[in-house]
């Protein structure tokens, strides 16, 4: 299976989960675990980087929505990096591009104003 996941912490203490390949019913549980790990550490703001994602299905969207809800409950936020038109389209046709804070690059995401 063509899937990669990696959690990294940027200089400014901002965690980023980098995904690659296919995020689907088989692999999305690993994304869920990675997000839960951050939430349990009390993280209030993190990035999910979809730059190298080639495929993303409803399971992956569901996991991202779940993470967004939990972090917004504690007044935090989750930022998505999604430069790929192919993947962005899945967010657009489901209307989720209006629900998530979507950015084209890490730099753009880091400069985004803190919500709430």
């Amino acid at each position, binding site marked *: 299976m*063509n899937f990669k996941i990696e959690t990294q912490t940027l200089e400014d203490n901002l965690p980023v989960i980098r995904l690659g390949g296919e995020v*689907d019913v088989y692999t999305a549980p690993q994304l869920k675990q990675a997000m839960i790990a951050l939430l349990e550490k009390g993280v209030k703001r993190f990035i999910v980087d979809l730059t190298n994602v080639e495929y993303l*299905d409803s399971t992956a969207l569901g996991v991202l929505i779940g993470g967004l809800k939990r972090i917004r409950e504690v007044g935090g936020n989750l930022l998505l990096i999604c430069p790929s038109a192919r993947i962005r389209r*899945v967010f657009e*046709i489901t209307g989720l591009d209006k629900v998530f804070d979507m950015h084209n690059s890490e730099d753009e995401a880091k400069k985004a104003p803190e919500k709430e």
Partner: protein
Amino acid sequence: MSSNIAPAQVELTIPCQPEYVAVARLAMSGIASRMHFTYEQIEDLRLAVGELCTLSVEWANKNNRQEARIVLRTEISSNKLTVDILDTAGPRHCGEGTGRDVEEENLAQLLITLLVDEAEVIPQPDGTLVRMVKYVGQR
């Protein structure tokens, strides 16, 4: 990059398990590439097949059917592609979810509706058949 090819069927049988959904998607891409679909339409079909197989996997899980299988059957004709997804995942009880997150389930339904031109659910004795149609040259 395809020619006028005769009606032809392809059939793929996979275990109704999460790790095989990607195999169905790949096969779907390969089959759709044989027709005059745009790159985006091929992506749509791949996503729709992925969502339908995922639904089958969730029901097999809920109905405790470890042995369930999914049959993907495609029929290519000059102006359309018909895709049947048949599972032996047991009954899908009305109004009852798979226990899957409701939002995910709604998203899956939404995607299927948006991505293909027709989709019909036909309950079977041992599972479910979903028949999708995608027309060439339409969006």
